[in-house]
């Protein structure tokens, strides 16, 4: 017969078989010592949960502080930035007919390359695969390098490689290349297929690519897909905001 300690251990790892579960319940009713031991461990678990939540919350607040700290920019950079703005605005008055169109501006204020969630760059990582180098270039904003590496991986036709390659092109404002890559991911996959998880994201970025290409009507229809997407809250608010700004144009 299984000993009592093992039964309690299995309870906490959620691996009791049906028979063990029956034995467990029986002991809980009839064996005072077993019951006390179990209750003790349950209370211990609750104390640990409580403490760990507080600890993790502090970690998250640390992430939050990091985000806020990055916004504080030393004075000398402000001065440098101010002089650039001055030069640019002089340029703007001289060459205003070449200035960015409204859709391009909307693109610029909404585009950030999708976070690398496939290969988080790990410091001192020993992973030297091409794919991992590609993602590390992507994380560093070296998009030309990333594209070259994405072109060299074995599985370059895989959805996620296409997607991140499209991100890299888009970051370089090479809109047509990005559009060609995103289209197959953005058009009606079966809800059960692997492509589906890229569906909302691909539509959002396809919309942005069209915006940057000044194809406003096409952009609108992509944003409509994002807004009405059945199961993702992804970028719905942002897409609505862009739609309202296009309309008010």
């Amino acid at each position, binding site marked *: 017969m299984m000993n009592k300690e093992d039964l309690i*251990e299995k309870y906490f790892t959620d691996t009791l078989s049906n028979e063990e579960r029956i034995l467990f319940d029986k002991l809980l009713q009839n064996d005072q010592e077993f019951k006390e031991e179990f209750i003790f*461990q349950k209370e*211990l678990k609750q*104390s640990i949960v409580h403490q760990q939540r507080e600890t993790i*919350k502090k970690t998250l607040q640390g*992430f939050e502080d990091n*985000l806020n700290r990055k916004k504080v920019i030393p004075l000398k950079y402000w001065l440098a930035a101010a002089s650039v703005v001055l030069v640019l605005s002089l340029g703007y008055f001289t060459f205003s007919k070449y200035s960015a169109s409204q859709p391009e501006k909307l693109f610029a204020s909404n585009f950030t390359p999708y976070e690398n969630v*496939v290969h988080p760059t790990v410091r001192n990582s020993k992973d030297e695969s091409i794919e991992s180098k590609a993602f590390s270039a992507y994380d560093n904003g070296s998009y030309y390098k990333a594209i070259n590496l994405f072109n060299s991986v074995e599985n370059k036709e895989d959805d996620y490689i296409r997607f991140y390659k499209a991100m890299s092109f888009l970051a370089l404002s090479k809109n047509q290349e990005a559009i060609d890559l995103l289209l197959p991911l953005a058009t009606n996959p079966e809800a059960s297929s692997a492509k589906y998880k890229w569906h909302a994201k691909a539509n959002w970025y396809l919309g942005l690519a069209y915006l940057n290409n000044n194809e406003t009507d096409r952009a609108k229809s992509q944003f409509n897909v994002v807004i009405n997407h059945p199961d993702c809250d*992804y970028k719905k608010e942002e897409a609505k905001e862009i739609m309202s700004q296009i309309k008010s144009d």
Partner: protein
Amino acid sequence: MTEASPNIHLEALRKGDSSVLESIYRSNRASFLSFALGFGINQDDALDIYQDTIIAFRENVTSGKLTELKCAPSTYLCAIGKYKIFQLLRRQKPNALNGRVIVEETNEVLDVNLFEEEYTNRMKLIGDQLKKLGNRCREILILFYYEGYTLDEIAIKLDYSNKLVLKSQKSRCLKQLKDSILS
């Protein structure tokens, strides 16, 4: 890696990778906050709920309830967060939710995890004594009771020669803790 996926990243999260936690925190923050502010709560509460939601999400992953993402993480976060927002609204303005349907579509993978477990004085006492235990004991107990590690996994992570050695170490830790509470 043939299946592209954020699921690889879930495995890293389960193993306690904090860079993955930070990347999830950052990439979903803006969309969650705009979602939460839509319920008319203030920025501080929204941020507080976002952090609790991330913790609940992480717990769903470490406990093994959530092993595969079928949609963007933001969808799961909003689904969990929504209940936490309702919880806050019920506390702040008991009448505000009249007429609003609260229970929505059932979602098997989603454990809403509202953190409503009771926290008794005895648990607090156990917690205080737990802080006085040695690091090794604390580490074992946290991995086992919170991080969802099995004894086999803990033995590997902490370099025990086998599960039995670890098991008797864990029993000693529990006994030490119990004795300290009685004394």
